[in-house]
């Protein structure tokens, strides 16, 4: 078996992995606080929070992006995309109708006026023509994106719901929804959509394009007015495009603001102490623990964190000045991993809720540890988000006891994806695959024998 990216595990496997990670962390006595007894009141608290945020929304005119839980941001994005597609397809229809009407009218006019002063109409046609190709382009692109999300609306079986009940930490909100819908459904056997909010993706892409060489990116101040404007646009749910005219510092500030204002900070508050406790560990132990803690995160948090860390790593790689291909000096942005960790630490690892008294001020004593932890996360994000073969075996073994019928399917999918990663170009949204290239050279029959051995290994193990 090959190491696999966390987000390419199926939803079911991910849920099991969460449980395993929690179990292992509890053995290490790291997250004793998260024991199941304490989960109960937290669940009810989340409902209260929901109600609070709901009433707040009403006052502020439904913010779509800032200051609302991450899963809600992603849902809003998704809803917006779907709406957009509908609008676009209807608009495309309108355009087509309009075009035929205009053409028809032009023909009539040509006939009647015989080319005299008919300049106006063809001109109109001309002005509208360049629009339609871009519309078509965009819609086909977002349709593809929207298409991926269909699979993620998955549900729960009796078995797994018990399993998840023991793990309310994972995604309390989604869980509530599912429960109300009934218990007869299943967790998906396919990977969940890559859950990163539009605003994070857009900001990262913009800075990757325009800001990697900017000295002090994320540190230098921004225009408060322009950031506020961008924020309002995102909050109104508009499709905000960030182009090269947008100052990178504004975009950087926007990203920081989004993370800071998340009511459930990117690394959930419940895990704050646990993450911080890794600061004093020796390196290999530290990384192993951090990985388990990352496995505990709800998928949308984990995916967004992955995207962000990947991006910060990229920024840090441009910290030093370097030589271009022609020998000219490319200035560095001076934002090393530790600088970025200093800036992002308090935004990602929050102890207090934003808006609460002295939030941030309370963080000061922990700031060294916060910075150190985030530094490790940025430096090692690649390995941290990989699920080792041993861990995958554990997941399958666990599943063998609860849902033996799905194992075959999962194994098949696993080995198929190993093969297909070579042939399929990665989509824009998925992070780079980290599978070693040699895996692609494996032959089919080799694979099936490996598959067989994995299954028999599982059988044996459970037999004993």
């Amino acid at each position: 078996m090959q190491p696999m990216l966390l987000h390419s595990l199926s939803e079911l496997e991910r849920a099991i992995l969460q449980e395993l990670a929690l179990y292992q962390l509890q053995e290490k006595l790291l997250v004793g606080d998260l024991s199941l007894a304490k989960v109960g009141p937290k669940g009810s608290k989340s409902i209260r929070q929901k109600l609070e945020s709901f009433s707040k929304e009403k006052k502020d005119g439904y913010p779509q992006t800032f200051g609302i839980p991450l899963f809600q941001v992603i849902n809003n994005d998704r809803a917006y995309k779907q709406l957009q597609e509908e609008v676009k397809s209807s608009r495309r229809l309108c355009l087509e109708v309009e075009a035929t009407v205009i053409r028809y009218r032009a023909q009539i006019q040509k006939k009647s006026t015989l080319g005299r002063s008919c300049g106006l109409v063809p001109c109109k046609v001309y002005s509208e023509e360049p629009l339609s190709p871009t519309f078509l382009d965009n819609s086909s692109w977002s349709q593809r994106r929207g298409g991926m999300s269909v699979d993620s609306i998955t549900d729960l079986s009796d078995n797994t719901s018990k399993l998840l009940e023991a793990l309310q930490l994972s995604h309390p909100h989604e869980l509530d929804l599912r429960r109300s819908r009934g218990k007869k459904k299943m967790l998906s056997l396919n990977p969940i959509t890559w859950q990163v909010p539009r605003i994070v993706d857009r900001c990262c892409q913009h800075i990757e394009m325009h800001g990697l060489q900017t000295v002090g990116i994320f540190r230098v101040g921004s225009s408060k007015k322009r950031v506020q404007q961008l924020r309002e646009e995102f909050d109104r749910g508009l499709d905000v495009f960030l182009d090269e005219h947008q100052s990178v510092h504004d975009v950087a500030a926007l990203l920081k603001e989004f993370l800071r204002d998340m009511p459930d900070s990117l690394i959930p508050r419940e895990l704050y102490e646990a993450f911080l406790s890794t600061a004093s560990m020796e390196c290999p132990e530290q990384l192993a623990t951090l990985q388990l803690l990352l496995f505990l995160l709800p998928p949308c948090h984990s995916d967004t964190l992955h995207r962000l860390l990947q991006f910060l790593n990229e920024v840090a790689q441009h910290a030093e000045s370097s030589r271009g291909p022609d020998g000219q000096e490319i200035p560095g942005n001076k934002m090393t991993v530790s600088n970025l960790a200093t800036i992002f630490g308090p935004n990602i690892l929050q102890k207090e809720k934003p808006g609460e008294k002295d939030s941030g001020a309370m963080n000061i004593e922990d700031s060294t540890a916060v910075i150190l932890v985030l530094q490790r996360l940025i430096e090692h994000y690649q390995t941290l988000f990989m699920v080792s073969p041993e861990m995958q075996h554990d997941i399958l073994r666990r599943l063998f006891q609860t849902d033996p019928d799905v194992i075959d399917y999962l194994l098949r999918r696993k080995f198929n994806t190993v093969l297909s990663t070579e042939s399929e170009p990665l989509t824009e949204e998925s992070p780079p695959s980290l599978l070693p290239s040699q895996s692609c050279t494996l032959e089919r029959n080799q694979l099936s024998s490996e598959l067989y051995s994995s299954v028999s290994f599982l059988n044996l193990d459970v037999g004993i």
Partner: protein
Amino acid sequence: MPEQSNDYRVVVFGAAGVGKSSLVLRFVRGTFREAYIPTIEDTYRQVISCDKSICTLQITDTTGSHQFPAMQRLAISKGHAFILVYSVTSRQSMEELQPIYEQICQIKGAIQKIPIMLVGNKSDESQRELDAREGEALASKWKCSFMETSAKMNYNVQELFQELLNLEKRRTVSLQVDGKKSKQQKKKDKLKGKCSVM
């Protein structure tokens, strides 16, 4: 830690990368580093004399990179005197001081009694966006004192802190503990009156 009542607290504000930490470190340790490292918050202590006895000068170096309004309010309400730093190479950094100044006015009320220094740092830099007159104009508008400094060249740094303490009228605070250096200080004061832009 219980706070001593006779601490004299100076808070340094300013945009990211204008040289707040550099000024403070130059003053406290006499060193300068080229490194580019953001600050969250640091506090330095030094013994000074106050009303003929000894007290602690506590210098709080704040962050320019973060926006923690609660922390900023806390620092202002605890502070006795303020240094507002901009970089002469960045007009934006001067503009970013405005909301901080307004917040100080709001929290402290009677602004005339609060020692505030407006500081244009990096005066050694050749690529200026602001000349000294603009700093002076802003200072007179804000009814505070103004000085250009260079932490790198150690220009006007000691003088900055001395002047700030001189502005304190509610009590007599001085950087000198033993009074031996007072002559030297007077000389410096004279020089400072004529300081010109490098």
